[in-house]
Structure formats: structure tokens, C-alpha cells
């Protein structure tokens, strides 16, 4: 037999009964939450044209996508993300119905470097609010993200909130090129002060600009960060960014979430976000569970002139966090197993139906007779076992009453 016949590709995973049940429960609570909040669920194609996801400055690297071709030789990819397809869909079919509130729970596939316990297949749940601008819309998204974490049983979380415009304002003020900005953003994302210093010393930035930029990695913490940040620059772009964050915080106060927020003006990542960005983090996982933000430029790249904001939550990461917090999920068993001797199928089937009507799962056991049934009950494969004998009489085997 070929070895690969019993293996799965690296980064893919089988989801086993207990895990799967937990995952569906989480998905169901999220779906309900999205729907109650006015977000309509959509599903986008598994295969899309590569160009949906690539873009000069913020696209996903083609190296990280699973690619194939259509009959005309055009490059297709398994969707590596759901935001771009949702925006594509809105730009071509919903542009008359803005604002649009869309949600999705679907798997995405990426092609990460080997050797890391990275998930190449991941279920992503998320929402996009397309066509609404301003801090209040952003706060709605953040509040919904917080509700998601609570809905899946993670009450202890933190919203890490940033605004990329603050960084770009400082970059503009320093007169740095776009390339340098992007490189600097990469070091800043790691709070790598030394790396930033090196880049800046080569960039020809003024000493003053450099000093300011070097403060960025430490501009995180509670709301006291604003005071430090305001002193840093009176550049209108930076001031606007700070005002926007304060407005978002004021709106989050309405939702009782202000105390769950940590500000980080050095928060930045290479993507389409162009306003506030945020991540939902919890002690139970070393990486962010939720990430989102405002991305007005993305609809523009699909010729849709509309602001947009949203977030995505990784369900596969969530499963890891829940397992670390609560231990491995319980493996579900069928409540009642029913065995029967020749000719007693009708009675056995009826008994199963009765159990099901009462809301208990039930299934028939065909082989191995009474002995096998007793064995399964002892092994914990069911909570109750019933044997239907020759007379058609139901006999409940050992163990507790149902």
C-alpha cells in the first residue's frame, strides 16, 4: 500500500467526534450571535481566481496559497481568507444595498512553511460591515468580537487596539519612503527596537524623527498612552488617529467594554487595514484568536467606493485555546444501544424511535448478541443498553436507569 494512503497532508487535520461536537457548538453560538446582530451569512466559492487575493501592497503572498488552473490556464486558488471574497461579492452584487452586514463561517486553506505546527486548513468565522464609516461602526465590530469570545466561554480576554494611521502619520512627517515604511512596520510589529534603529539610520531620517519613531514600540498600555502619544506629534494625521481611537473607546464604553481594552500604537501588520486594527487575545493561547480592523482601501480595489470594517476568528485556534483552558473535550457516546434477537427488529426499532422522541440518541447493535451489548455498556460506549429477547420483551442490561 502506498504510504500516503493512510496519511493526511501536513497542516491538515481530521476533526474527531468530541472535538467536532465542540466545534459545531461554537459555530452554532457564533452563527446565532451574528444573525441576531443583523449579519447575514454568506458562503463564497472554495476556488477563486488568484487575483482576488493578490495586490501590490497588501495582498497575500502567492507562495502561501494552494494554486491550480482552470481549463483556460488562469490561476485559481483555494480561498486563503474570507474578507476579500466577501468584499468581491459585495462590490459586484450588493453595491445597491449598502450598508451590508455579512457574516461567514467557512474553511480557508493556506500553505504555510513546513515544520511549524501551523494549520493549513482553518475554519474562519467572521463579519464584515461594508458601507459604514466612523468610530461607532468600528466599536460595533469590536463589541461583536468581544461577544463572540464570551459566547464560546472565554470570559477573560483583552482587546488589543491600535490605529495604523498614527504610524503612517509619523512616517509621512519623517519623509520616509513607502518601502522603508513597510520594512519599518515589520520591525515595529515585533517591537524590535534595534532593527528599527538600524533601518532608520540607513533611511536618512532626521534625528528628531528617529527619536519619535523609536518611542513607538513602547506606546502600549492603558489610556495613559494617549498622553504620551499626543506629545509625540501635532501632525494632523496622527492627531486624527488618536481622536478616532478615543471616539472608539467612548463608543465601547456604551457596550461596557472599555476596561477590556489595551491600547497599542505600535500594533501593525502587513495587510489591507488602514484605520483602527484590533486583536482579541486570551491567556489561553500564545497567539491572537481574533484579528480585525478597518479596511476602506480593499473595497476600493474592487471598484466599490465604500468604507468597511470587520474581523475574523480562527476556530481551529479557538479549539486549542479551549482545550488548554478546559481540557480535552468529552467524547460523545450514543445514549441507548439496543440489541435484539432474530425476529425482534420491529420492537427494537420502535424502542429506538421512542428514545429519540424523548431526545435521547439511540442506535441498534446488529452483531455479537447480548454479550457484545453488555461489553459495550461496560466499556462506556453507551449510557444504557437494552436487549430485546425472543418473547419481544425489553430487558435493560446492568448499570443505572435511563
Amino acid at each position, binding site marked *: 500500500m502506498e504510504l500516503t494512503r493512510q496519511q493526511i497532508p501536513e497542516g491538515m487535520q481530521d476533526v474527531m467526534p468530541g472535538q467536532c461536537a465542540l466545534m459545531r457548538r461554537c459555530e452554532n453560538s457564533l452563527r446565532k450571535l451574528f444573525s441576531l446582530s443583523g449579519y447575514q451569512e454568506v458562503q463564497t466559492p472554495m476556488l477563486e481566481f488568484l487575483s482576488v487575493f493578490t495586490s501590490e501592497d497588501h495582498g497575500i503572498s502567492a507562495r502561501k496559497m494552494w494554486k491550480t488552473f482552470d481549463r483556460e490556464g488562469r490561476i485559481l486558488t483555494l480561498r486563503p481568507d474570507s474578507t476579500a471574497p466577501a468584499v468581491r461579492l459585495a462590490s459586484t452584487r450588493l453595491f445597491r444595498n449598502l450598508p451590508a452586514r455579512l457574516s461567514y463561517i467557512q474553511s480557508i486553506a493556506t500553505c504555510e512553511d513546513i515544520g511549524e*505546527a501551523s494549520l493549513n486548513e482553518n475554519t474562519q468565522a467572521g463579519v464584515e460591515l461594508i458601507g459604514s464609516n466612523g468610530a461607532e461602526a468600528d466599536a460595533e465590530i469590536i463589541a461583536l468580537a468581544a461577544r463572540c469570545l464570551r459566547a464560546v466561554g472565554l470570559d477573560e480576554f*483583552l482587546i*488589543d487596539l491600535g490605529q495604523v494611521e498614527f504610524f503612517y502619520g509619523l512616517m509621512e512627517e519623517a519623509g520616509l519612503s513607502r518601502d522603508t515604511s513597510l520594512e519599518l512596520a515589520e520591525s515595529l*510589529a*515585533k*517591537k*524590535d*527596537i*534595534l*532593527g528599527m534603529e538600524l533601518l532608520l539610520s540607513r533611511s536618512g531620517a532626521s534625528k528628531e524623527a528617529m527619536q519619535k519613531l523609536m518611542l513607538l*514600540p513602547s506606546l*502600549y*498600555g492603558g489610556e495613559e498612552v494617549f498622553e504620551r502619544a499626543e506629545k509625540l506629534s501635532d501632525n494632523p494625521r496622527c492627531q486624527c488617529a488618536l481622536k478616532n481611537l478615543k471616539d472608539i473607546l467612548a463608543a465601547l464604553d456604551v457596550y461596557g467594554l472599555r476596561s477590556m481594552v*489595551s491600547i*497599542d500604537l505600535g500594533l501593525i501588520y502587513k495587510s489591507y487595514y488602514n484605520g483602527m486594527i484590533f486583536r482579541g*487575545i*486570551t*491567556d489561553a*493561547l*500564545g*497567539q*491572537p484568536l481574533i484579528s480585525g480592523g478597518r479596511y476602506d482601501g480593499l473595497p476600493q480595489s474592487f471598484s466599490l467606493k465604500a468604507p468597511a470594517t470587520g474581523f475574523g476568528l480562527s476556530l481551529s485556534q479557538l479549539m486549542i485555546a479551549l482545550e488548554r483552558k478546559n481540557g480535552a473535550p468529552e467524547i460523545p457516546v450514543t445514549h441507548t444501544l439496543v440489541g435484539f434477537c432474530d425476529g425482534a427488529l420491529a420492537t427494537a426499532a420502535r424502542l429506538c424511535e421512542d428514545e429519540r422522541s424523548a431526545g435521547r440518541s439511540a442506535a441498534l447493535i446488529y452483531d455479537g448478541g447480548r454479550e457484545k451489548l453488555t461489553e459495550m455498556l461496560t466499556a462506556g460506549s453507551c449510557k444504557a443498553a437494552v436487549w430485546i429477547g425472543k418473547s419481544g420483551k425489553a430487558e435493560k442490561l446492568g448499570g443505572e436507569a435511563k
Partner: protein
Amino acid sequence: MITIALAKGRLAEETMTLLEKLGIDCSEPRSPGRKLVLTDKTGEYSFILVKPSDVPTYVYHGVADIGVAGKDTLMEQNKPICEVLDLGFGRCKLAIAGKPEMRDKQNTSGSWRVATKYPQIARRFYGGRGQTIEIIKLNGSVELGPLVGLSHVILDIVESGSTLRANGLEVFEDVCEVSARLVVNEVSLKTKQAEIRPLIDRISELTKEREEK
């Protein structure tokens, strides 16, 4: 509780000396015996002793909040973890070295074979200049590569340069400076801010003082 990943060997020694200066009890990790998870007297800190190249992994996955690792290891693995401080010890550099007669021969040889423990750094270093190389991954005694004709050059850590000299090799060019870095998990940095931030600040002060001396 804060979990600190220590890179077994010299880096761990230096790190413990640093932590002890801050009044953190390191007696258990100093003589760990066979234990792998160790704690200080107050129970505020726990330590795990790991292979140097595993430090970024433990920190990335959040099972250690903080770690100390060489810049070389961090660059090679390029994981999204926060690299908050240069601790100033473990200083050396990464450099390209080879036999003297191979200097400047890259453009005239068909393929350029580089033996190294750091394939990713090598790829990025040459790739950044638009040069394609053939990488030969070795796990130790990299200097052997050019001596036995396995590779044209090596990309490796150079401290005093005495190993190179003893084998008739010389440095062609520097790749970058290396030193020990304090790394922090990006989630811990926020969720355990109240404990971690003062610790970073204190270590930073101490490092500065030492450098001024």
C-alpha cells in the same frame, strides 16, 4: 506567574546572573539536576531549560512568556515574537568565510555552494542581492565545508576568528551583528503587562548601566 525559557549553556548562565542582580532567585535553575521545569522561591517565576534554537518556539506558542535567545536563532526562525531588548552579552557576528583563493569568485563560478547552520539567513542574505545560491545545511563544524570541498564558503558565527584562522579560512564579509535578545510572547506582553513590563524596564536599566561601565 511568568515562565522564562532559558537557552541551555552560556546564554542561560549570563541570563541567570542578570536575573539574580534583580533579586530573582535562580538557585533551582542553577543546579537543575534532571528537572526540566524549575521555579524561584517566591513562585512568581518558573524556568524551563531548553535547547537554544527552541527558545523562539516555546515563546511563540506562549508556553513560555519570556525567553533569551541569540539574534542568529531569531533571524533564522523569523517568528512573530516581540524582541524587546538587546541584552548586550553573547556578542559575535554572522559572516561569510572561505579559503582566501575563493574571495570574489562568486560571479565566476557556476553555482555557489554555501554551507551553514542558518539556511534561511543565507537565503535572505544572498536573495536580497538577487543572487541564487545552493545551500548545504550542516549542524556543526561548518568550517569543514570549504576544507573538504563540500562548499565554496560558509555562513557562520564568528567570535574571535581563531577557529577560522586555524583552518586557513578568512572572513569575506559580515552578514550582521549578533547578541542575546530578550523576547516576549506577543499575547503575554499584553495580558501579563503588569508583571512583564516592569521586568523589561528593570532589565533595560541594568543593561544600560553595564554598558556605560
